[in-house]
């Protein structure tokens, strides 16, 4: 048995032990387990996983989380200071005592109200099969039609149980009714060694707007493998920005489907990596209706021996005339040992479309560093300023003032960690 196959055995055993107690449709669970048993963890033969190997995940072994009564004050203190209600999950389990909903927003959780809206594709995406097989809890957020739900923070805290790496597979569902609005600020932090494998399904009705800001600041020894599906109806908007700072191995996969005329999505991201970190941002945007727009600015800042991956696929269906697609991928290599892999893909079946993509890879400009130093700015600070400047055009896409400030702060702390 190869390493990947061996790695999936532990998860399948866990499913056998848990299956009678899992919430929701048992047939769905069994089908997901069958798919996961058949396909295993994605491996090198899988085109979508060409640049990201899950061997380190397969070689680790994970346990179920203990009932989380752990004191998570230190982790709570690491959440950005944003004045908004929070939905808090500790080791994947909902903590009602730490959670509240914004006025007008209905906050439920998966363990109490299991919900499979059907966007996720466990038959095709193996990690989604794993999640569908083992999901125990998650946030179920509903913003009724016409309601402006304001801001909600969705926080995932992973506690450290020394010597006992845990795995959790949250299942989140976010639904916005027609004309509804919400800013969702999702923050993942943790300590120790663990696997966080969330699946999020997002349904955006006509004219609704979801702003989704993600800050992934997981523990240095953790795995963060997130898959997100969004379906956007006519004139709706899914506007997202992901900042990846943490985890030894991270993958954030996004499938956005522009399902109605005039829908729009922004899948912007920045990844700041160092040491031997590996982070993969993979997106598939499907234009299934005319007059939709998708925009992506993805920036990687890579230090040490880190490796960044960006795969961006845009699919334009035959009926999706007047599609406007834009994709920009820029990498800044701070070390000769860092590496970026980038794969843009366009698959266009309509004839009247505007799709562009571009990619650049570069280093910090010595002339710029010297200019700053000649003005008295110490070298480390000069480099930090120039990295920040590089990120600026990506971060500028975040218009929510407190979220933007939180991201800026996280970047500053990241930089201080590098300097230390």
């Amino acid at each position: 048995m190869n390493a990947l196959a061996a790695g999936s055995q532990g998860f399948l055993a866990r499913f056998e032990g848990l299956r009678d107690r899992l919430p929701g449709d048992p047939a769905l669970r069994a089908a997901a387990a069958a798919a996961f048993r058949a396909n295993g963890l994605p491996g090198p033969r899988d085109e979508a996983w060409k640049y990201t190997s899950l061997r380190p995940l397969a070689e680790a072994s994970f346990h179920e989380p203990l009932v989380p009564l752990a004191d998570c004050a230190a982790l709570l203190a690491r959440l950005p200071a944003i004045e908004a209600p929070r939905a808090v999950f500790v080791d994947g389990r909902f903590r009602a005592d730490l959670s509240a909903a914004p006025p007008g927003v209905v906050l439920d959780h998966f363990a109490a109200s299991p919900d499979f809206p059907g966007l996720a594709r466990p038959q095709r995406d193996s990690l989604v099969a794993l999640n569908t097989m083992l999901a125990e809890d998650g946030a179920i957020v509903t913003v009724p039609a016409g309601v402006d739900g304001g801001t909600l923070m969705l926080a995932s805290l992973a506690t450290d149980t020394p010597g006992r790496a845990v795995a959790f597979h949250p299942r989140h569902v976010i639904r916005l009714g027609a004309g509804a609005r919400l800013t969702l600020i999702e923050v993942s932090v943790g300590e120790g060694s663990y696997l966080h494998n969330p699946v999020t399904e997002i349904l955006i009705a006509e004219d609704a707007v979801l702003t989704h800001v993600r800050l992934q600041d997981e523990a240095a020894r953790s795995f963060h493998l997130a898959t997100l599906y969004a379906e956007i109806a006519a004139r709706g908007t899914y506007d997202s920005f992901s900042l990846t700072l943490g985890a030894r191995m991270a993958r954030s996969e996004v499938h956005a489907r522009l399902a109605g005329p005039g829908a729009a999505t922004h899948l912007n991201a920045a990844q700041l990596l160092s040491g031997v970190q590996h982070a993969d941002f993979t997106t598939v945007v499907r234009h299934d209706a005319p007059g939709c727009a998708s925009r992506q600015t993805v920036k990687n800042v890579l230090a040490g021996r880190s490796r960044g991956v960006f795969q961006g696929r845009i699919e334009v269906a035959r009926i999706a005339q007047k599609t406007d697609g834009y994709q920009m991928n820029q990498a800044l290599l701070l070390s000769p040992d860092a590496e970026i892999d980038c794969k843009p893909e366009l698959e266009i079946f309509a004839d009247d479309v505007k799709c562009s993509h571009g990619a650049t890879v570069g280093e910090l400009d010595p002339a710029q560093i010297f200019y700053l130093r000649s003005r008295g700015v110490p070298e480390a600070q000069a480099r930090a300023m120039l990295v920040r400047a590089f990120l600026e055009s990506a971060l500028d896409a975040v218009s929510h003032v407190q979220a933007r400030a939180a991201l800026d702060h996280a970047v500053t702390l990241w930089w201080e960690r590098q300097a230390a």
Partner: protein
Amino acid sequence: MGALLQIAGLTAGIDGREILTGIDLDVPAGEVHAVMGPNGSGKSTLSYVLAGREDYAVTGGSVRFGGADLLAMAPEERAAAGLFLAFQYPVELPGVGNANFLRTALNAIRRARGEPELDAVNFLKLARAETKRLSMPDDMLKRNVNVGFSGGEKKRNEVLQMALLRPRLAILDETDSGLDIDALKIVADGVNAQRGPEFAALVITHYQRLLDYIVPDRVHVLIGGRIVRSGGPELAHELEASGYAGLAEAA
């Protein structure tokens, strides 16, 4: 103590090619010296070596600044010690706001000197006063450093930095080139406003014109990487009339 800047037998080059072939030059505090010379004679190289650009290799000689060994200092230490270079070609910093850049520079230097940092409000007050004196539009503080600036705006931005950082020695590398007469006067006023017993300047220029507005104490002629002649302000007029040809032969 001797002159503020003392350069003795300085040789330097790049990629194994010697550009400065032996510079001897003293600039005492309180004086303004001009360096003139044809294109390619090594004027910018001298200014970069003094500011500490690392791609130039110093192969011999010494430079003392305020009594300290300048060549042993990092560029930021030289700035903190009071050396300032107005670049011939100011560098663009996309994504860095000019006000943030200026405040970061000023506070880095204040910190290095053990002075308290300026907060945003007090900094802006100071910066606005200086931009006004230099007839710069206020929005130059808001724009990204030198990005989309005209040639003249870039040069004025250099003078603005000098005015804020208050160096003991300013090296102006062809700050006059590409300026119309009004801009030239503004730049000259900016330099003249700094003049005093604690301030010295090394004004590198191609043209006599600037020296009508910043009248130098001494004029040096740099040809082939060394100073071939020095004199009073009248030397600049002589060069304007007869060019460098005769001097090149003498060199």
